[in-house]
């Protein structure tokens, strides 16, 4: 082995350094634009806020490491939600109790001082919707929340370990129930 390969190796490391910072920039920018969405999704899994925040940060770190290792990820958003879902479920399993998704949400919704702009009618509608969402089955809720985040049926199915057609069925049922709740209130 001659000395030169080491030089080439050093140049390779420098090149790697430059391309790494570009990847860091991209993932960091993606983190800033998406972290709140992932954090809120983690809350819907029943994680406490601190756990949800740490889990969110962990997910983006994993994204960076995975990309750094050369793995191709076509849809970053679907990937982070899938990983956030699985990671969140693992964390939730280890909780001594399962927290309901934000039991105080309705209380905050009812507080007229919290949001003057929103009319009472709209608040009541959202309260009804919140209750109807709470009464959905777990799978219906998961499919609904992931669909709200823009994931397609196969992506939701990959996150939940079910088929795309099952996703469609769960969403259909969820929407039917929410619609019923909506119509009952009008």
């Amino acid at each position, binding site marked *: 082995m001659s000395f030169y390969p080491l030089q080439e190796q050093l140049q390779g490391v420098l090149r790697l350094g430059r391309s790494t910072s570009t990847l860091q920039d991209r993932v960091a920018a993606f983190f800033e634009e998406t972290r709140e969405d992932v954090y809120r999704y983690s809350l819907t899994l029943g994680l406490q806020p601190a756990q949800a925040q740490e889990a969110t940060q962990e997910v983006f*770190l994993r994204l960076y490491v995975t990309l750094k290792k050369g793995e191709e990820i076509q849809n970053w958003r679907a990937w982070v939600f899938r990983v956030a879902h699985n990671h969140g479920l693992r964390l939730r399993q280890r909780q001594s109790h399962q927290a309901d998704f934000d039991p105080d*949400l309705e209380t*905050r919704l009812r507080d007229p001082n919290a949001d003057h702009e929103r009319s009472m009618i709209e608040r009541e509608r959202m309260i009804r919707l919140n209750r109807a969402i709470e009464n959905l089955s777990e799978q219906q809720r998961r499919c609904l929340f992931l669909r709200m985040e823009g994931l397609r049926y196969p992506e939701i199915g990959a996150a939940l370990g079910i088929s795309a057609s099952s996703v469609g069925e769960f969403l259909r049922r969820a929407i039917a129930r929410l619609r019923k709740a909506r119509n009952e209130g009008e």
Partner: protein
Amino acid sequence: MSSRHSSRVRPHATEDELMRYADGEMPSRDAERVRAHLEACWQCRAELDEMQRTVGDCVRFRNTVLENYSPAPPAPWCDIRRRFEEADTQMSQRSFWAAAGEILLAPARRPRRWATAAVAAFAVTVLIHQLWETPRVEAGVLLRKAAAAADARRSAAASTKAPLKQIRIRQAGRRLTRMIGAPSPAPAAAPLETANLEASLERLFKEARYDWNDPLSASAFLDWHGRLADKRDEVSRSGSDYVVRATTGSSSLVEATLTLREADLHPVEGTFQFHDQEKIEVSEIPIEPVSAAVSKPARPESPPAHEPGRPSVPGGTATAAATPAAAATPSDEIRVIAALHAIRADLGDPIEVVRSADRILVTGIGLDAGRQREIARTLETMPRVAVQFQDSGSAELQPVRPAGRRPAISQEAARLQARIEEYLGGRPAFERFAERLLDNGERMMAHAHALRRLGERFTPAAEAALDAAGRRTLDDLREEHSGAIRRECVLIDSLIAPALQSAGAKAQPSATVPNAANWQAWAAIEFQSARQVEHLLTAVVAGASLEDGSGDAGSRLLTALDRLRAVGDSAR
């Protein structure tokens, strides 16, 4: 309903089709079909609008309620770039080690050139070694501590064996559950699919010389790790837990991770990446009485529970010897029914679900091997569930499917059919029309039977005994069935009403819909109404004689369809 041209009436789009169409999840040909139908059909367009309004509510909910009312993150967001840098440092240490290895080997080949560089290189190597060694020491230290903690727990329990625990193993969508610390089950007690999966995983682990008896243990990990000629270690945190990762090129198990709980270094999760295999995930789950379909220790005389074609002895299903049997609850029962419904096994398959004191027994008769495996796989991880299959030679279970479709045709029916044929444009069109309607009728009755069984099985008292999740599942199921009955009723009506009206049939004002005290009573009424529709439908399109001999089956069918719709509306 107004009459239409004799060309086939396009049926309404189902809710499922509308949902997929709106979400862009349909193949383009189907989407085009739905789009064309929506152009022509106000009813379906109105239905789609309603659906879209609900979707709009959900979007508003996400954008306003979840955004504005969810608790804010309790701490400032971390500097994610710093974490990236730390990850880079860890990964680049491995690259430098590989480069340092090259440097160390070079003097043997060109001693003169490398003499002066050797001293500097040695210093770098020492530094790298110190940095490199640190994570390996930490990994080793952690694992040894975890193994010692496990030993201490065993000593405290005055046992020399691994404590009882239950683990779930997943690979590529398949999964199985094992009880660690209990005697190994007889292989024949497990379903074929589960047994095959377990055998293939055991082979992989044994080839890699990784202890399959307790794969989620620090000692198994240490033992495997210690034998590796080359390895790279990494210790990271997942929340408060430690994650030890080892990668190697000298084993068929190329990467393994073990997640240790911070409080007591108890392993809670592991991943195992074998060469050319899907990743295997192992996690500890709370101990529950395991179903007979999975690794329960079986009595030696128990026959296999799932082998296709072999009759099972009632009560011969294996039961858990290692854990006390908890009572089977109505909530267990509804979950089993929901699981069967997910694979449509409650809609016409010859399956019975019976709850006894300690288990839910699911029996199937005359099912083919593929269906048996599908059902077994669906139920394998559900607690307190036993599955038995029998050949169709056994008469224990009554098949749910309706009897044959084409009894001898009556004169009245022949006249009606002739007029419908004329309306549709010929016998071939009528045959297709009749097949279609009978399929709809069969689907409707499958749901009506399932709904009635739910009502009979979950009386108000039994329903009150369900937990909240069980009640939601029950509500979902009965809504699903009721919705399906209505959909099929609407479809049948849209198909047959124009043809019958062209033949002079007319719906009569139906008697007042009775009032029912609860959904269970409605389910029985809905079943009776659906059965009446199906009976009359068979009379009209298949020429069956009506029991009471009275004529004008066409008008009676239209009346029965109206009544079924009214019953469904009243039941909601």
